[in-house]
């Protein structure tokens, strides 16, 4: 499980494997999140037509993925944790897609 980006500390055979993320990764992720926040505000100030909303969503999603992978350490998690994390968002997708498939198509017969 050794990784170039982490230091392995294992004091006994029964302790958890400790992946100590280097400081520069935490600081880089923090900087990226701050830049993402500035970009979100900047993008909302321009009239980009239909693109304003997708851009805000993409930036927020990238920020969320950075937090999940690095701050929440999912990148070093067990496969079972990956399954639960991915399944959470699949269920969220089911919630959104099925709900919108109903509500957002109700007015179609009017036009």
């Amino acid at each position, binding site marked *: 499980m050794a990784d170039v980006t982490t230091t392995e500390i294992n004091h006994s055979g029964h302790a958890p494997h*400790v992946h100590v993320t280097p400081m520069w990764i935490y600081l880089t992720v923090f900087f990226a999140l701050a830049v993402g926040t500035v970009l979100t505000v900047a993008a909302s100030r321009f009239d980009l037509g239909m693109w304003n909303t997708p851009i805000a969503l993409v930036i927020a999603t990238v920020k969320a993925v950075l937090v999940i992978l690095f701050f929440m350490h999912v990148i070093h998690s067990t496969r*079972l944790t990956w399954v639960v994390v991915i399944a959470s968002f699949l269920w969220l997708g089911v919630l959104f897609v099925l709900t919108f498939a109903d509500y957002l198509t109700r007015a179609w017969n009017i036009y």
Partner: protein
Amino acid sequence: MSDITLGGPPPAPHAEEHHEHHHPFLQHHFEDLGQQHEASTLGMWVFLSTEILFFGGVLAAYWIYRVTYPEAWAIGAAQQIWWLGAINTIVLIISSLTMALAVRNAQLGRRMGTVYMLIATLFFGSIFLGVKMYEYTKHWQEGLFPGAAFHWNEVPALAPKVQLFMTFYWCLTGLHALHMVIGAGLLIWFIWRAWKGHFGPEYYGPVEIMGLYWHFVDIVWIFLFPFLYLIHGAHHG
């Protein structure tokens, strides 16, 4: 235990292992601290998946009405002070960094480093809640609390729909702030535990899980900020 009652072989082969590795925080139903750590991380993620769907349900309703009443949503977002939301986003990101560093210090066995980073997380979390309280007070005074207290009427035709936007605003930010208050309470307990020296390289799982919760609440805000403050055409300084 059954060995003894059944008169089987004495538990001598295990005795040495137990003396050497019995960590005070190892629960009896786990083989070792590694298994306990993995189980707790997995369990926390199962809880967070319910949280994702909990906020997801409110957000799905928010989007249905946003698509239905786009002008009212833009006007509603224009009632927010966007730069207060931006400052709070940065404040929360800083608190996530300090939370991540608290976990790192616990992993490295730095007792006071863990304490200081947890205190910093509590500090920035409190600043967020302070700014939120200022915003809530302002909205209340401006008649932007839904129900009998709602007096906003700048665009009479859209007022009921702006009230609907504000209902989502109060529900979403209120649920988020409730999570922050619970997180702040947990942090106070964790600061005490870290100060007592409970955490270290062999046992940092609870700090990690506290971090998972705190980062999740940060992620919710990462989406709430553009959804509630930055709808295009909504800027008035």
